[in-house]
């Protein structure tokens, strides 16, 4: 009798564990698959800084050229957290938020399009342009307290 009740208990616990695991996996899975809209990303960062319990003005740079983009959600949350954390640090008066290419050579397609008087495309030439960028050291010349939370290149 005791063993029977014990088995039922194990069965219930196992079921609950499976349900929780699936729910968690779905959340993690979705989190990795989901991406944040660019305007939503910008708003999240503003809120994290300017509506922190210790609010600070924030200036976001490096995304001005983007008009339509989806931002990695997994990191969006962590970055929001980092912004909020920075507002809480002693002596911090404002937040400078800079986005630069992680790999300092970016490969771009150039679209050269000829347009007629009615605004219709007549012809196009595609070219490639590889652009070299400064790495993060160029933005941190005046800063010694740096915590690098980035995973290795190629990892989430």
């Amino acid at each position: 009798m005791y063993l029977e009740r014990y088995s039922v208990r194990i069965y219930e616990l196992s079921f609950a564990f499976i349900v929780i695991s699936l729910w968690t996996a779905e959340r993690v899975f979705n989190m990795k698959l989901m991406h944040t809209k660019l305007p939503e990303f910008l708003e999240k960062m503003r809120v994290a800084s300017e509506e922190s319990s210790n609010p600070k003005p924030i200036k976001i740079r490096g995304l001005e050229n983007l008009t339509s983009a989806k931002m990695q959600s997994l990191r969006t949350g962590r970055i929001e957290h980092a912004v909020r954390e920075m507002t809480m640090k002693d002596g911090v008066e404002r937040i400078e938020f800079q986005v630069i290419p992680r790999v300092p050579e970016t490969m771009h397609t150039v679209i050269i399009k000829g347009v007629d008087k009615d605004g219709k495309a007549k012809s196009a030439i595609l070219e490639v342009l590889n652009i070299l960028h400064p790495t993060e050291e160029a933005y941190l010349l005046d800063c010694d307290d740096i915590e690098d939370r980035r995973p290795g290149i190629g990892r989430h």
Partner: protein
Amino acid sequence: MAKLTYKMIPEGMLEGKYVPLNIAFIDYREVKNAGVTPRQAFEAVAKTVDGPVGMNIFDQDVVTTTSDGVMVEGTVRFMAAADKGKINPDFGYLEMAEMPYSDELIKEEPHLIQWKKNYPGKRLFRGPDPATKIIPVHNVCISGRASNNNSATEMMNIVTMEEILLPILGQQQILRNGKVILGMTGGIISVGIGMIMPEKFGRVFPTRQFPAGETAHGSGPYAQTLKAHIPCIVADKAVLAENIIKCLEAGCIPGRTVGASPAVLSVARSMGVEIDMGNITDRAYEELGSVGFTKEWMQEKVDILTPEEIIARADEIIPGVVDGTKYNVPDLIKETTIEL
């Protein structure tokens, strides 16, 4: 305590030309004598510079090829970039790959017939193996503002966006305390650096992307403007002439088995060496013609000179470099010694 002696050009004005970042030229023999690795040597040099610095370790005991395919002694085997003492861990350091001698390689890259004839037994290095680098296209090291590009032959400050060209023969002269010309690159060299030979793990291209007689630029009349306003430190033209003569005497034919750069064409014409005009593409002719090296120029009869005469008159025979001045290297570039 071990010491390391190297040559250093500080950022700023150098005899009227602007050097956009600090530049260190280190002899590989010095690194080996100091008992440190190339990376350790770079880290030690970087720590002495409170700004952007490009750093090259030059091995005088190996051979390489110039962009137009002329084989020369010595090359950069290790390159790095640093800013305020930091070398970026992912992008700040690169090593060149050795290309072992094989008949297959000579077949694929016929300009290497010079190797056995002129430099038998010497090891060949040009660019890095692309599998060893994260940067997708360029053979470049970047740390902060400092960029050391094209396998250590052009350096930039990416924030000010100013640049300097350091062709390999100029670096050879710097390491040898020979003679160099400091000047502006100008249109002729801008065109010439596009007349490359197909090379695996080349200094600029990792694959044999462009055949002999073709231009890598493909820019028509714009090719002459590409590097025109950038300062450069190149070898004395007598040194360049001597190396091109050795290349042509080994049997290389301009436009077919050595690049049709203005320098190679000029020496070939004075030697009476045939130019493979049929193998030079229309696109390459357009660029060459834009700076005066037309088909008519190539066919023009000129006095045939001996190698000695060409070397003696190299300044008038070999074109290129605008507003250039010749220097003995010790008068231009100072040595520095640090303790490791």
